């Protein structure tokens, strides 16, 4: 039974214990990953070559996609920037949200009728202000 107890025993050095579990997980991921590659690589490659698999959806709207991917980080950046300039008043949130909500609504709106644009503008001003007043001032929720 000594082979069992030697296999069974485990010593984890506390100073190194932060690596023990990640190593197990990485090993498992590597094994499963290789297995998936071996079994699935060929059919996937075939599908990609024949054009059956496309990364983007058919008729993707690249303008809206790219604009979205630019607009969200720009919004977060602006929020942080204003928040540092005028700290602890929630103004980073308020002053960044108004243009963001307006820009994103305009981007997603297909029929820019006078009515829709009015709704969008009103919403862009009212919604962030409402949230700012209620959450920041009444509930003291932290805001940038």
């Amino acid at each position, binding site marked *: 039974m000594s082979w069992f107890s030697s296999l069974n025993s485990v010593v984890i050095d506390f100073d190194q214990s932060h690596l023990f579990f990640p190593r197990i997980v990485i090993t498992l991921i590597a094994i499963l990953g290789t297995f998936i590659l071996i079994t699935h690589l060929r059919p996937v490659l075939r599908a990609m070559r024949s054009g059956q698999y496309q990364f983007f959806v058919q008729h993707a709207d690249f303008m809206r996609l790219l604009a979205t991917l630019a607009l969200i980080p720009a919004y977060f950046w602006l929020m942080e920037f204003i928040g540092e300039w005028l*700290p*602890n*008043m929630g103004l980073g949130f308020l002053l960044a949200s108004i243009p963001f909500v307006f820009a994103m609504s305009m981007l997603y709106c297909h029929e820019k009728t006078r009515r829709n644009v009015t709704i969008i503008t009103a919403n862009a001003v009212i919604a962030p202000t409402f949230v700012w007043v209620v959450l920041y001032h009444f509930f003291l929720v*932290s805001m940038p």
Partner: protein
Amino acid sequence: MKNIMHTAKVMLLAGSVVAAPAITFAADNPIRGNIRIVIGSKSTGGDTYQASSIIAEALAAKIDANIKVDAVGFSAGYQALERVPSGNTLMIFHDQAYLGHLYKQKGYEDPFKQWQIGPSFATNPGNGYLVPKNSPYKNMDEILNAAGNGQTIRVAIQPGGVSEIGYTAMKNAVRLAYPGQEDNLVALNTGSQSDKNQAMFDGLADVINGSVQANEQYTRLPADDQKAMNFVWLTAKSSTLQNANPEGMGQTSRDELLQYASGLGVRVPMDAENDFTFDKEFFFLYNKRMSPEVVAFLDNALAEVFADGKVQETLKKSFFIPNFRTSAEAQKHFKAKRDSYAKIIESLQK
């Protein structure tokens, strides 16, 4: 053209009238706008949040400003403090600030280099050590002697700070009395208070770190309850604990607690002459670039808060001990405190 100039003048005048009250306000408060106090703990149920809320409320009333306490944790707190030198963001932390650095914890820099030390305002005298009620060890002497005579004693702590410092002191005490035997005290590294209690219930630990606030009720359980424990040591100075609320905590009076206090009921030597004691003290940390004017303003404001005497009552009610020092005094005090602990931590590192 003349008209436009006139309008502009009127508007300017109107503007200055509106701004006037703000100017007089700014005259005695150099911090404009809201103040955010970040704390070194992520918990809103812990003592740091509690002490900070009490002092923030009193300070806010004194200087007539909005103050909000945010439990962001030390790492995010340091980042927030670094970014805002105006005094709009302040931090409250306790001895962990330098102990984390002494124990070489990740993310802790030397606070004396990185920050300005602000005023201290309260002490939590509750930090202590407990044994199960059915433990063979009844007091600190028995534990230290057992370890000196070759018994392995497992102590459940959270490594790297306030929870470990008492364990370090015990180890040091064993080293002083029985050189070479200190490794018989073994740290069982756990996390929160519930993990430490659980380690005791599981029989994994002989001694656990705990506090008067969290463990007092467990000490009053009947001995046949597997959850029952006894205090063996409170690390606070007995002179500090003497200033506590006479009712103590729960059903345990201050006098009953005093028998476990350092220097009175329990002696854990630090060196040939002195006993080891540890008071967990809360203090402000400021951005290095914060102006002396703001520092002085906050010093004065807090001094006035304490002169009014009301905040002391609130603190005492929650088992804190009021403890006000101005920034300059605090800086000197904590430096000396740090140096004395650095010595015993170093002496145990081979």
